[in-house]
């Protein structure tokens, strides 16, 4: 008979470090993700400093002394390293572990009623490979020539030795992303199979909480598209190290030569789904939390699921919208524009469902709910601005400007970050047995919400005014000089934004040690993860629960004296 081996040894090594318990691994991912989030955020602040005060050395409170440029000034190559590593770290080492690594691990088994992941050892290996990849990534900073500086897209030939970036930084970048991809693949196999195989009896696909749906669909995208980028990175890596010529062409290639466009295709075949990989967990979590805090079933949950699945399918065939200015053929340009715009149909449908969930609910504005509602706000802006980019003609102007940067920070940085904060606030009591301090959480929320909008909206404004991205010193151009004030304003707001994140960090750590001890089900939620006592033992459920309800039976008139009921409890009078 198949079964899951759970070690009974109690040493620190096996319970905290090389643990195969999905909850521990989830927490490990969480800490790593928060570390990288702060690291990437710090780099963002340095980027902003340079954009606003290009001629001044970085002040001590931004750790100016670690910048080893001339007199603490950020030099062009340092600037390029900053945004390259910022983009890379945020996408692959902050958001991925935070949402997929941490909450994927923590939530999937608990919410579907499983004792652990399908392959616990693989799960542990996934974390440690991930960790290793992070070490490789950061160790590039110790190279004499510094880390990668070819942008997070790393387009060849710039990212090849022939492209003029000295040293091994680019190769470290490629290698670390490849390792990260391996870790992600291991995780993805685990999540997909766990959901297929280990759902508790009665937990049909449509009785799974929407958060599990989001994570599962994300994993499916990972399964399909991480291998694609892995292949691309292997080709890039041997181009960098062995001197093959996949992505070299023209004068730089000796004898024949490849095609740099191939890399762009491979990158975006993966890269576009990647952005949905990042946001699908958030969509799921938001759909779920809206229901909990409105005390009302998620409106049209099935339709939401179908919409998210449709987006999964559509996302894989729209990659060309990142390449409109490469000289694409009219046929492909039109096809990609049409397909891209199709995505707005399912998006607006589930968006409507979110709003309809609030309608006639009974809204409780606890911190998780605040962050969730913020997602609605920022994702509406981020998603709708995607439509400009999808339009071929508008994108010819907007491509590679700060407008695009604003668009993707709204969708990715703002929506995904708020989604992550909502998830942390919501499941914190389950992870650490204590509550986050609500007052600090609320201050953090409002501070973040206001400043993040001022930062990212104004980025779009500068982009529309013509400022292109990856620009060390915008003042170099006369037509950008009027934007100097705006850039300073954005930067100041970004500093406030950073300050509020420190507040979050304080709250996160302080509450872990001294916070109010949480009840078992503080939010009165239906799903299975709230049914056991804290700390949740290795193996989660002493007996596998029998599920009889969907996850959203809030305010069901058949429930007496409560507005919720656990998924395992039969509701009298319900068919």
């Amino acid at each position, binding site marked *: 008979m198949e079964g899951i081996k759970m070690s009974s040894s109690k040493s620190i090594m096996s319970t905290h470090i090389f643990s195969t318990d999905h909850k521990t691994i989830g927490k490990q991912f969480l800490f790593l993700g928060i570390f990288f989030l702060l690291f990437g955020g710090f780099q963002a602040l340095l980027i902003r400093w340079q954009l606003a005060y290009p001629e001044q050395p970085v002040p001590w409170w931004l750790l100016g002394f670690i910048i080893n440029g001339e007199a603490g000034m950020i030099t062009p190559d340092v600037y390029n390293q900053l945004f390259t590593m910022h983009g890379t770290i945020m996408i692959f080492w902050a958001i991925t572990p935070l949402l997929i690594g941490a909450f994927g691990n923590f939530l999937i088994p608990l919410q579907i009623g499983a004792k652990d992941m399908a392959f616990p050892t693989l799960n542990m290996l996934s974390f440690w490979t991930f960790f290793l990849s992070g070490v490789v990534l950061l160790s590039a900073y110790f190279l004499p020539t510094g880390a990668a500086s070819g942008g997070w897209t790393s387009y060849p030939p710039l990212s090849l030795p022939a492209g003029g970036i000295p040293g091994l930084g680019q190769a470290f970048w490629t290698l670390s992303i490849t390792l990260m991809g391996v870790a992600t693949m291991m995780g993805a196999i685990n999540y997909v199979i766990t959901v297929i195989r280990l759902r508790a009896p009665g937990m049909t696909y449509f009785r799974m909480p929407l958060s599990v749906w989001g994570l599962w669909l994300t994993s499916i995208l990972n399964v*399909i598209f991480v291998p694609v980028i892995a292949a691309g990175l292997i080709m890039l890596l041997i181009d960098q190290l062995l001197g093959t010529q996949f992505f070299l062409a023209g004068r730089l290639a000796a004898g*024949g030569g490849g095609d740099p466009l191939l890399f762009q295709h491979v990158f975006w075949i993966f890269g576009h789904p990647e952005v949905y990989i990042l946001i699908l967990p958030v969509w799921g979590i938001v759909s779920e939390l809206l229901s909990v805090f409105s005390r009302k079933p998620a409106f049209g949950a099935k339709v939401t699921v179908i919409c998210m699945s449709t987006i999964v399918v559509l996302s894989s065939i729209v990659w060309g919208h990142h390449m409109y200015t490469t000289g694409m053929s009219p046929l492909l340009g039109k096809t990609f524009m049409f397909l891209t715009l199709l995505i707005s149909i399912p998006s607006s449908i589930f968006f409507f469902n979110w709003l309809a969930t609030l309608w006639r609910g009974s809204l409780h504005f606890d911190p998780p709910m605040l962050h969730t509602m913020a997602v609605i706000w920022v994702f509406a802006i981020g998603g709708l601005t995607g439509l400009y980019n999808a339009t071929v003609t508008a994108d010819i102007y907007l491509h590679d400007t700060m407008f695009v940067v604003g668009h993707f920070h709204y969708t990715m940085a703002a929506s995904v970050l708020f989604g992550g904060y909502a998830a942390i606030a919501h499941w914190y009591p389950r992870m650490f047995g204590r509550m986050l301090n609500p007052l600090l959480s609320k201050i953090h929320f409002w501070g973040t919400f206001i400043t993040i909008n001022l930062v990212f909206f104004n980025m779009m404004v500068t982009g529309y005014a013509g400022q292109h991205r990856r620009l060390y010193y915008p003042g170099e151009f006369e037509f950008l000089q009027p934007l100097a004030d705006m850039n300073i304003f954005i930067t100041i707001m970004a500093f406030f934004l950073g300050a509020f994140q420190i507040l979050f960090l304080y709250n996160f750590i302080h509450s872990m040690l001294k916070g109010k001890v949480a009840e078992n089900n503080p939010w009165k939620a239906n799903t299975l993860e709230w049914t056991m006592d804290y700390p949740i033992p290795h193996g989660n459920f002493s007996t596998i629960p029998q599920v009889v309800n969907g996850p959203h039976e809030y305010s069901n008139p058949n429930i007496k004296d409560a507005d919720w009921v656990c998924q395992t409890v039969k509701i009298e009078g319900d068919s």
Partner: protein
Amino acid sequence: MDQAIPMNKTFFGNATTGKLGMWLFIVMDGLTFGTIIIGGLGLRISAASWPVAGSILNVPLTAFNTFLLICSSFTMVMALNSIVKDDQKGLIKYLAFTIAGGVIFLGIQAWEYSHFIMGGEHLGNLLAAAGLPGSQFLPTTGIYGSVFYATTMFHGLHVLSGVIYLSVILSMALKQKFTSNNYDRLEIAGLFWHFIDLVWILVFTVIYLI
């Protein structure tokens, strides 16, 4: 502490969890190979010229290699067939044959590579006839060399990991870990091995024959 867990068997019949995992991995690996092969084809379409099949690469030798992999696939599946009938001896015998097949495959490939890398006058003439410079055929020999080496090297690494994987399985078999109702791991390893064969069939056609 071993705990049996109820499985959701709908849709996938009696396929075990491990097997589903391996299938998923195979799909992923197939996509990786697919990307490399599609990339190679794309480059080939846009390349100015491309050496005629067989003008540089040794087709008969590689055809023998293909045959070898087919045989080892056959012995692999026979190993499974033996254990189903609880034939431990047969299992070990066939597994050993399979591993040997893989090792010989690698040996031939290494010989082919070393031949290309050492170069020589004859190879130089072949290359010149195909419009490529130099007397060695290296990964840096134009885009043709890049595509050839990347594809075959990636496949070769798979064979290597397959050989290691099967050696572990063999050592388990020697300890009599498999029985007629416990051979899941063997079957999973087999899937991986057959997949390597399957990919080679494609690589052989695309790189060597077309």
